[in-house]
């Protein structure tokens, strides 16, 4: 199995008023099997557009995405998705949600139930499997979403701000869980986030994107994700490099935000 290749992707679409938006311009990336890459950037830099293109929900106007040596043309179970919220099926129990992928593939119950139970154990929801998802808290729901994605055994997991709607404490716990799952399963993960801490803690590679047009601004390779697998995340944050990198990226994004604001004001 080879990794994921994003080759010269551009996205440019027309607006009703005749103008157009260049959401992405010449984005090229190579992600190896088992890498965890987090993507950061100010609002409107095309993070979600990029993810939707990789997932196959959007067709790029230029370039292509290749996975396992074939070109992405639409959604497929080799690329699993974890969304921010509300992507679970309320009319199903926790277990039915998690087993959705295998069930849709027409697998026999005996073949997937073992794996589903194991995943529910890993995410700590063994006692809740008969519950309906609307009876769970936000953090538990996201754990169901992670388990549902893993139960389908995708090659790549695409996460669109999966922890964005959680409170700070739950979020830290979930970050640990994401790292643990990543290490245990060895999946390739692309994680989009607004939180710099999350990007630094979880990303082996951190991609900072810039807006107008959406493009890759800078890329980091960081050791914190590896450290976080065995250590407490709070200890990782104490690392001297952590603070300086955090500060550097923060300044970078602040400058971009300010530039956007300035430009918007000038346009008006």
């Amino acid at each position, binding site marked *: 199995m080879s990794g994921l290749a994003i080759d010269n992707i551009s996205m440019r679409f027309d607006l009703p008023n005749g103008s157009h938006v260049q959401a992405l311009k010449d984005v090229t990336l190579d992600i190896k099997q088992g890498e965890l890459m987090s993507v950061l950037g100010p609002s409107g830099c095309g993070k979600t557009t990029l993810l939707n293109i990789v997932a196959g929900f959007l067709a790029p106007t230029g370039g292509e995405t290749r996975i396992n040596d074939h070109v992405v043309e639409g959604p497929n179970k080799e690329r699993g998705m974890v969304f921010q919220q*509300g992507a679970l*099926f309320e009319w199903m129990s926790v277990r039915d949600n998690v087993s959705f992928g295998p069930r849709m593939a027409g697998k026999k119950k005996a073949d997937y139930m073992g794996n589903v139970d194991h995943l529910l154990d890993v995410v700590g929801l063994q006692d809740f499997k008969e519950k309906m998802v609307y009876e769970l808290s936000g953090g538990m729901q996201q754990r169901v979403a992670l388990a549902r*994605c893993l139960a389908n055994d995708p090659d790549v997991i695409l996460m669109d701000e999966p922890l964005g709607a959680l409170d700070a404490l739950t979020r830290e716990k979930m970050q640990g869980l994401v790292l643990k799952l990543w290490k245990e399963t060895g999946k390739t993960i692309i994680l989009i986030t607004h939180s710099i801490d999350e990007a630094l803690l979880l990303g082996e590679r951190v991609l900072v994107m810039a807006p107008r047009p959406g493009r890759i601004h800078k890329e980091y390779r960081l050791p914190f994700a590896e450290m976080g697998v065995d250590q407490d995340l709070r200890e990782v944050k104490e690392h001297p490099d952590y603070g300086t990198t955090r500060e550097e990226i923060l300044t970078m994004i602040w400058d971009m935000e300010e530039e956007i604001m300035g430009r918007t004001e000038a346009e008006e």
Partner: protein
Amino acid sequence: MAGTVNLVCTRERLGEMVTDLRATPVPDGQVVGENFTPADGCHVASGWETFSYQFGTLGSELWTETVNVVLSSISAIPYIAGYILLIVMFMFVWRAIKSFLTPTRDYTSLKTVTFGDESAVRSETAASIISIILIFVIWGTFTGSSLLPSFLHLPGPFTGEGSFTYTVEDADGNRDDAEVFVNVLAAGTASEETQVDAGDGFAKNDSASVTIYSSEIVSWDRNDDVNRRDDGARIVAINGQEFQFDPNARDDNGNLTDTAPSFTLDFARVAITDRGTINVSPDPGWQMQPLYLPAPEVVWSRFIEIAKYGYQNVYLTVHLGFSLFRVIVGFLLGAAIGIPLGYAMGLSNWFRGWFDPIVEFMRPVPPLALIPLVIIWFGIGEVGKIFLLFLAALWIMAIAARSGVSGVRITKVHAAYSLGASRWQILRHVIIPNSLPEIFTGARVAMGVCWGTVVAAELVAAEEGIGKMITTASKFQNTDIILLGVIIIGIVGFGIDMLMRMAERRLVPWKGKA
């Protein structure tokens, strides 16, 4: 119409000059603007005249109606105020009673801010109970119901005997008094001729019997020695109260010069008619006539009677069964077509474009407006009525299903695709369950509309059905049956909605929790 022209005519009517506009046929062989000559005082209306006359007429008619509505509304204000006063009074009474009971101490009742906190406002059961009881009490009060102690009744119509005297003056100025004995009979009592002593003098005593809520004209002179026509005799006083009224004094146009007087006595209203006779209207009291509002127990015994023996040879169960049958079949057909139609509109550009104009046009057309057309097309049989209900349910269900589909969060669909589901599986496992809450809401609305429509449709044309029962009853002035029908319609409609809500809670437990 080619052969018609609008003419503005000015003519005299009742001493006034009136200008009006009327459509007039153009005689054969004449052409407007060439050889057509309008009648005297008329000319062909210009476009502006036609327009301004129409709006002027409309405006003045609507103004009259507005004044009427405002006046009737104002006359209702004291009653509304009285009712509100009762509500507030009962509220204070209930609060006083409550202060002696053990207070509830759940979370909501401990809130201090309730005014403005919608979640703290709960339906007070006591208020509901009192309000329903009060309706029946008011109903009983105004109908003299036997269910209520009689001190709660409003004064009923006068029954029994009463009398008054009248004074006659003949042409020579002689006066004599005589008495009229009035026997007011309750409805359904046979009148018996009462013999009264004629008394002395040229005016003789009279007797009359009247049924409640009606009036009787007393020709006082039929047994007197003088009479109105030949002797110019007339009444100059009632119970000693004198008045000036001469039915023979007329002006050149034949109109009376005097105004006929009337007197309110303790048991009746007595009026002198334009011909000089006496009109006796016994005091109707404050209660409603059974024709307008029958007492609750009358309606109840009618219910028992109709349930047991039927009305006009049709049992109540048959009436009700037919109405429910129509509603259910019409609704099921509407749902069977409407839901797939809504899904198609929610899932395909082409279907949405195709059906949007049709649905948006048909949706605001009330099914009742289609009744005449449906009768012309299908006759008065079941097919027509069910077709009408089908239409009523169809658009509501289609729109509910469409908005159910558009209410699916795109992340759910994306997630399902990423988990490898096919289109069919997404429809079956994501879109349909996700749209069920919307469809249930639509179904509740549709059932309500269907129930209202079926009754109205049966009012127009039906052999049986609860609406038909009402129409028949109205023709025979069986107000109790009309009222019974209204109550049954209300209860059944409420019951249907409760059943739908129960089904909703059972089948869509995740509603509102996504």
